[in-house]
């Protein structure tokens, strides 16, 4: 057995999400610690075309963010389309491509135009490979119900390619990272609509059981049930397409207009419209007490961050004295940070054969990431102590993703506890034994 085969045989490569989710968490911490070094002492950030802020933005969206997207898509698309999982070789090849893209971009300042060309090829190539891998499956799915992933990924490829094309042309490439953030928001809305169907309905089921238990207690204890409780029987949650499509339309339109007319008041109104459309989406989510369960609430806050983020961006474009970066960081640290953390926890554990984590570290980490988002946004308000708040935000983020790297990393590198051999969800026989 050669080295490659021995490496591929490790449990870490049993399913595509495992290495990608692991590097997501670790890279998330590493990037922000480097950024903290830059904020505090001006060190820790490589020289890349466009400067340190471009490095920070590019690596967090196209490095950290796309690692999570790749892990999710490579695992979820075979499941959604009922096709075979991607093999260990594909996983390792994609991981190497991702790592090569990171390395090339880090060195692109030092290596000159050669480095820029290499970074462009590897980064654009990674996204293109991802699209090429999943496109046939999404397209040949009988009802093509998941094509929105394909459009989102293709648009993301466009953003990555646009960025590197601008670097090669010598133009400031930041607008493309912002477009990438918009596409990330679209992918989050699309992905969460799938994940939420399960999470919210599980929470509703738990709530039904709780009510039923209360009813039995009430009867034995001589208490009677409220007579009208039959009326508000809990209905199943459905992520309805019309509201979702309006939200996606709003976000995509803002992204396109902001790219074409940066800083215009037109995009300000559209950002406000996107915020309202995302809030409108939450109508489906207002299912009562079940919303307060751990996972449902976590996903719910993702939409709130997204809505508040677009609202702040819109207000800032319309002349309200708020730094544009305040809203932007609610989208990235808040919506992207919390949703990726949620997906790591939910998809990461269930597809590794474990039940959802009920330990308290999950809450601590989720709250830390949420605090990081709020504190970072607050630093952009007029009169805020920006430097201190930004440092605090970095530390909170590092705590959140550090916990994820430790507790979830242990799951990703370990063999499955059940009879599964790949990406399957928790297998029944484990429950039977337990």
């Amino acid at each position, binding site marked *: 057995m050669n080295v490659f085969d021995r490496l591929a045989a490790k449990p870490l490569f049993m399913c595509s999400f495992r290495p990608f989710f692991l590097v997501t968490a670790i890279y998330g911490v590493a990037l922000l610690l480097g950024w903290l070094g830059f904020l505090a002492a001006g060190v820790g950030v490589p020289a890349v075309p466009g400067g340190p802020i471009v490095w920070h933005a590019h690596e967090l969206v196209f490095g950290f963010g796309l690692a999570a997207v790749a892990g999710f898509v490579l695992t979820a698309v075979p499941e959604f389309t009922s096709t075979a999982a991607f093999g260990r070789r594909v996983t390792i090849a994609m991981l190497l491509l991702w790592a090569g893209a990171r390395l090339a971009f880090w060195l692109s300042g030092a290596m000159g135009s050669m480095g820029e060309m290499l970074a462009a090829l590897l980064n654009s190539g990674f996204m293109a490979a991802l699209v090429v891998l999943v496109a046939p499956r999404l397209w040949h799915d009988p009802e093509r119900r998941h094509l929105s992933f394909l459009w989102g990924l293709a648009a993301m490829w466009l953003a990555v390619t646009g960025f590197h094309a601008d670097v090669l042309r010598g133009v400031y490439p930041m607008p493309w990272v912002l477009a990438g953030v918009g596409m990330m928001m679209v992918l989050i809305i699309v992905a969460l609509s799938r994940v939420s169907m399960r999470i919210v309905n599980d929470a509703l089921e738990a709530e039904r059981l709780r009510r039923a238990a209360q009813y039995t207690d009430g009867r034995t204890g001589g208490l009677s049930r409220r007579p009208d409780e039959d009326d*508000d029987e809990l209905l199943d949650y459905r992520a309805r397409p019309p*509201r979702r499509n*309006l939200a996606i339309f*709003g976000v995509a*339109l803002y992204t396109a*207009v902001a790219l074409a007319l940066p800083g*215009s*008041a*037109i*995009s*300000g*109104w*559209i950002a*406000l*419209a*996107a915020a*309202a*459309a995302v*809030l*409108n989406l*939450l*109508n489906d989510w*207002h299912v009562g007490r079940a919303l307060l369960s751990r996972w449902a609430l976590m996903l719910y806050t993702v939409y709130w961050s997204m809505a508040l983020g677009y609202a702040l961006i819109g207000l800032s474009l*319309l*002349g309200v004295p708020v730094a544009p970066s305040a809203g932007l960081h609610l989208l990235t640290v808040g919506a992207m940070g919390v949703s990726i953390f949620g997906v790591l926890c939910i998809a990461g554990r269930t597809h590794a054969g474990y039940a959802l984590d009920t330990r308290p570290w999950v809450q601590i980490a989720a709250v830390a990431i949420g605090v990081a988002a709020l504190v970072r946004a607050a630093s952009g308000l007029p009169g805020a102590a920006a430097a201190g708040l930004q440092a605090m935000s970095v530390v909170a983020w590092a705590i959140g993703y550090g916990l994820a790297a430790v507790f979830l990393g242990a799951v990703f590198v370990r063999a499955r506890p059940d009879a599964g051999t790949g990406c399957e969800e928790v297998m029944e026989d484990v429950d039977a034994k337990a």
Partner: protein
Amino acid sequence: MRLLRAWAAGLPAYLWSGWGAIASLLLFFAAWEAVSLVYGPLVMPDPRSAFGTLLGLVESGAAWPELAATARRALTGYALSVAAGSLLGLLAGLSMTASMMSRPLVTVLMGTPPIAWLVLAMLWFGASDGTPVFTVFVAAFPVIFIGALQGTRTLDNQLRGMAEAFRLPPRMMFTDVYLPHVVSYLFPAWIAALGTSWKVVVMAELLATQDGVGAALAVSRSHLDTAATMAWIAAVVGLLLAVEYLVLEPIKREVERWREHGA
């Protein structure tokens, strides 16, 4: 009471679904902003300066007397047409002959442009409140009349037969058989007529009176003050939207609910 509680329970979800409407309106503002960017502020001031002007009008107290005058005229004409239109429409609906006779007349009323009535009204009533009130009345009357007529014409005879077979007392007959059915036709007609009244009154004021929103629009037009023009338009449309979505639409949903249940 039960109805009230059901209504109150559905209220948060109803209000929350307003975000969808707000999103569409904000996209409309974006299009407005784009037009003003292309054609310049003289042709089309941007939304912020229009709202800024409106805010100035409201804060200085200049907006309220005009809005009050407009509302008074619109509501007077509207109330008259609701009373006359509902009553005459219901009566006409009771008789096949009367409804046959009234249909062409209503078509004539509907087909006559409100501006023609306005010219007649200016000849008859001069620059008094009578002109806008009459124009509103004539514009809104046929809409309500048709609604009331259809409400009575489409009463289910079998349902009435069954109610009679059960010897329902007249009062119950009215409240449980006739009223819900007729109201479900009347109410949408009332809402449509309210929108018409609100638009027609501004038009009538523009040409015929010295005060009110319409007159204010005429002044801002003569000053080439497009920002003030847009501000007044925003005020009129905003009020209509608020009344329609916050007051009338929730009531309409309740009134029409029985139809969905197939009762």
